[in-house]
């Protein structure tokens, strides 16, 4: 057990820290759009440019192969960069689904042509990706998806509907699961496509959320013709490829979410130092101190539990139980953190953006509401617990 860094790693830390200091716009940190966990529409242009800058500086995709725009480093270097981003309250990555899921999956399953075509543009944010898994009747129960793809010459003709598709309204590409063999049972007969969102027949309809934003979308495919070269990992092998994506998602979450959680926690502590309740500064209230300390501890636990998983990865082992729990810990901790922010604000929690009385411009009201989706997006908490119970603990299926 050793938390000390090599001289090269120390140098990387210094480099990224200096770069962030020089490059994060001061006003960014104080902007409501910037502190939110999830990119908000007002910030897309800024964030596109920001990710490009990160790419040019080499601070994104550190573990990806050099030939596809990465740096061929280990998760340790990735962790260092992520930690510095948290400390600097750096903006989140816009093309997060590309970087966290599409890229690693293409690197793992793609043909040479697919890798050359797609990977570096993911990092540079030239092409934004979204994920087409969920359907109206296939949310948690992904294997029941109904979108159909029928072979016609060199193309697959795809029709159906996806839902809860983040970023679809700005995305250039979609990781798409569709049923290519209607007779095969549930998990079988599904294929993973790299879909061009600009093809004829693709319609994106924003879905307004309880936050008032429309960050998710419905995506309708009406006889969209996709060339067979856009199949990833083989026909009818989509379930395996899709699970890989989800595995990378969890890994990416383990990294990224911890960083965002720390930023949120620091924000809560700042908030608590400034707000009063019954005439007493929140941080001087024994009850509130308990709640803040507990969140602090859980945020640290997520970090160290993540570090244990990364250590195994670095050793070439498969991550164990500690990896599966990352998402669950994050969801639970983050939602309670947001609830605590509301509690700290008290009656002010009712005032939102557009009022000069709104605390921090209504940032927390937005992030609080947005956090409700955490326990559903990327697999409900109930499903995560099933997965842990069945795959990690070996309990019988329901």
């Amino acid at each position, binding site marked *: 057990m050793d938390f000390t860094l090599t001289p090269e790693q120390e140098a990387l830390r210094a480099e990224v820290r200096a770069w962030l200091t020089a490059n994060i716009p001061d006003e960014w940190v104080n902007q409501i759009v910037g502190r939110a966990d999830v990119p908000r529409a007002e910030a897309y242009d800024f964030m596109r440019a920001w990710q490009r800058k990160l790419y040019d500086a080499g601070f994104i995709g550190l573990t990806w192969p050099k030939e596809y725009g990465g740096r061929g480093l280990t998760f340790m270097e990735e962790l260092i960069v992520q930690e510095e981003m948290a400390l600097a309250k750096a903006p989140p990555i816009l093309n997060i689904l590309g970087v966290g899921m599409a890229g690693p999956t293409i690197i793992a399953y793609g043909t040479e042509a697919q890798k050359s075509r797609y990977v570096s543009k993911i990092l540079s944010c030239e092409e934004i990706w979204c994920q087409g898994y*969920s359907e109206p*009747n296939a*949310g*948690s*129960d992904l294997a*029941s998806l109904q979108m159909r793809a029928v072979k016609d010459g060199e193309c697959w003709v795809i029709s159906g509907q996806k*839902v*809860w598709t983040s970023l679809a309204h700005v995305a250039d590409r979609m990781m798409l699961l569709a049923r290519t063999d209607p007779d095969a049972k549930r998990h079988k007969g599904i294929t993973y496509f790299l879909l061009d969102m600009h093809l004829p027949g693709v319609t994106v309809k924003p*879905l*307004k*959320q*309880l936050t*008032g934003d429309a960050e*998710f979308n419905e995506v309708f495919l009406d006889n969209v013709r996709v060339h067979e070269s856009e199949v990833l990992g083989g026909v009818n092998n989509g379930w395996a490829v899709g699970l890989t994506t989800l595995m990378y998602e969890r890994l990416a979450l383990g990294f990224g979410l911890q960083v965002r959680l720390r930023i949120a926690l620091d924000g809560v502590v700042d908030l608590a130092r400034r707000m*009063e*309740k*019954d*005439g007493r500064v929140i941080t001087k209230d024994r*009850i509130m101190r308990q709640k803040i300390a507990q969140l602090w501890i859980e945020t640290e636990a997520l970090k160290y539990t993540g570090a244990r998983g990364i250590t195994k990865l670095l050793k070439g082992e498969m991550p164990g139980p500690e990896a599966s729990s990352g998402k669950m810990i994050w969801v639970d901790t983050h939602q309670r953190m947001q*609830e605590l922010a*509301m*509690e700290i*604000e*008290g*009656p*002010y*929690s*009712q*005032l*939102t*953006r*557009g*009022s000069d*009385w*709104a605390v921090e411009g*209504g940032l927390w*009201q937005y992030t*609080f*509401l947005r956090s*409700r*989706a955490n*326990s*559903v*997006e990327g697999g*409900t*908490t*109930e499903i995560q*617990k*099933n997965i842990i119970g069945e795959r990690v603990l070996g309990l019988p299926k*329901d």
Partner: protein
Amino acid sequence: MNFGFSEEQELLRATARKFFENECPSTFVRARMEEPGGVTDEFWTKLAEQGWLGLVYPEEVGGTGLGFVDLVVLMEEMGRASMPGPFFSTVLLGGLTILEAGSTAQRKEWLARIASGQAKVALALTEPSARWDAAGVTATAREEGGGFVLSGTKLFVLDAHIAEAIVVAMRTRESGRPEDGVSLFLVPRDARGLEARLLPTMDQTRKLCEVKLGDVRVGKDALVGTKDGAWPAIDRVIQRATVALCAEMCGGAQKVLDMTTDYAKIRIAFGRPIGAYQGVKHKAADMLVEVENAKSLTYYAAWAVDENSPEAPLAVSMAKAYVSDAFRRAAGNGIQLHGGIGFTWEHDLHLYFKRAKGSEFTFGDATYHRERVAQLISL
């Protein structure tokens, strides 16, 4: 002993439920959310016609003369409908303050007009310190020329922007005990120097305002109740309004439970309705237990308030502490068990979720009221 509702009360519930299903469906609520006023004249008139705007006022001032146990029934149904508009601010804050503290003349003048739907009256109590106790009243009224000059800022004032008049709590004397030296004034909204500004809120069915008093001059007759001695009346108003709020929250929580149960019966995942899975079923059972407890404590508080029982302050704090947690959790679980659909704007769940959050911090949150319980049981 009888801890149940009378036939008349059950009839009121049935009437109210039907009324709100017809007159206040979620399309109506959503339309009002988009507007500053939050209510239509037509709807307000219908409430008056039902006798609900004066439900708890004595008959001699134009009310129906019923009690808080009756009101609780009505408020549950209003909460169930997530009813928008100035009912709470006018009937239970402004009006109740006039009832508790006002002169016979003031009561006659205002309560009849409130009950008949002609007047809306707000109560401006809290300030930027966001305190619910007497120490929170720091805006000052100084005597001058036979009248008073009012200065300060009030915040989180419900519906001040559409009220005909605003009852404002002002400090008229500094003293060792914050409870001493608070007075109430009835100020027309169009008084010179008074500015009521609507603020954007998370729960758009609740319209909150900032009320700025810039040397507002009022006559002696603007005083509601005795000078310096208004706090006990305010305290009673807060207590009563808290019971009403708890009932509204119970109604909302019950509605969320109903919506969630209905959805769990029809939504299929992995080949079965999700309500068949213990992960869903047990959460729903927990919700039921909490909602039932929430109601029990609220009903008891309403009874205690009606009886002027010495236990009333304790009963009210017990109710608000419990109900705040129960509604928040019910609304959160409701969204969770609905999956993605529960997170959409189109689905009505968020109306309740946001209402739960706003109500949680109104008149003190669970922590505040648990501490009050500790004090009241002499811990």
